[in-house]
């Protein structure tokens, strides 16, 4: 999925989750629990290209106990050839075990967020 407008657009790999409600992706200001997550949503770059930080917050905790906290942004989301403007997106500011590495810890997490 691609998020962002114009030159700011970034492509992310997301878990498609029919068991939750929210679209969220790791932000570049995430300081806890986002180690090795790449790419991350470049907040100031997107803001300069039309994204809006609503300042609202949201958090999710999943069945396995992992969680994240996020700030709600509005930006353009593109899947294939379909684009949706002003989609609400949780930009993850901290994560509790949500982003996982493999057993050796030498590979980055396979996803940068979730599409609920």
């Amino acid at each position, binding site marked *: 999925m691609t998020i962002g407008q114009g030159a700011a657009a970034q492509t992310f*790999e997301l*878990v*498609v*989750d*029919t*068991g*939750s*409600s*929210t*679209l969220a992706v790791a932000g570049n200001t995430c300081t806890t629990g986002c180690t090795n997550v790449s790419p991350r949503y470049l907040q100031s770059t997107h803001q300069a290209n039309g994204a809006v930080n609503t300042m609202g917050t949201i958090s999710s905790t*999943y*069945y396995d106990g992992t969680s994240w906290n996020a700030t709600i942004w509005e930006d353009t989301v593109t*899947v*294939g*050839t*379909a*684009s*949706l403007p*002003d*989609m*609400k*997106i*949780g930009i993850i500011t901290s994560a509790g075990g949500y982003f996982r590495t493999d057993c050796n810890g030498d590979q980055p997490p*396979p*996803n940068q967020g*979730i599409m*609920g």
Partner: protein
Amino acid sequence: MAYEVLALTSASGVQTDSFPDRWEQVNEGTAQGAGYNLPGSLMFSMLMCYDGGKMWLDGYDSSYFSGVGSFVPTTADNYYNIDINGVQFTDPTGQTIYHTSSASHADFANTYQAVDSGSTQMILPANVFNDINTYLGTVPVMQELFGGANFLTNGNCYTGGGNSIATINANLPWLRINLDFGVALVLPPISSYIMQYEYDNSTIFCPGIASAGSSDDTILGWAFMNNFVTVFDRSDNIYPNGAVGFAPTAACGTGDTALVLLPLPPTPSATASATASATASATASATATPTATAPVYHQFVTSSFAQASVVQEPLELDCWLLNELGQLRAGYLVDLASNEQVCCHFHGYVTPNQQFCETRHNPHCPARSSRTVQ
């Protein structure tokens, strides 16, 4: 896990907000057009294999189906929850029942059963899980190959003794999950309670079911979904609160494929048949004796969805729509006098001699329970 997006044709009708309380505001599209490509249908589909998968927006691709599928209603507007009425162990046809003590709707009452692509295993209510675990411990092949009595709880994975998946599936009970309206899903052992993984270039088998513990909520995760192309319908075209469709698939290459069993029509009562036969033989009249006719279900419609198959019943039923998986399971009742759609949802079936429909709860529909057309 990377998903391939196919059949993406239109943004119209696609949710424009990621929060479920806004779903009500989404314009509801109408399924139309050909086959799997249904712009604005509010439908998306997923195929989840153990290594990758596919996702389709605005429809599904029936060329990935390996057999008959069906929709069941979702129980609430904002999650993909369905009703489970029981779990059984059967043979691969789903008919010969080996173990029934888990087969109770009460075990699933007052909890939710979610189709959840974000989970790995199947999570079942604790008492159902315990019953399944105990039963599997008594199955000789489980004892021989999968660690005996506590395969689902001991945290171990097994090599399966070098046996092929087909051999293992042929020697273990299959898992049957009963859903609404008589629809049942019959899952092979490997790809339900046993999950196949590739690890260090070899195949290992791990538990596919876990206990919900105190929550008792059911989650149908990847261990369940990798048997099917799962179709999520968020419109009210099929059922008022939306629907989830299951069509078996062989696309994951995991061996045996699951079955989707469709409801059977009611057979004529023994009393009615006996009376009719007695009457017929006594009077030697030409009165037809009611016979139970095997149902002939419509097959998948892959090239002409819409009203390609219309069954005329001129008094009250103007058109019967096939649902998106090709069964006569949802559609419209039209009042021919006013030409108005008087009911929006029903399920039923068609045999050569009999049609049956039952309307579903919909505030826009007049009270109407069931109807049999001879």
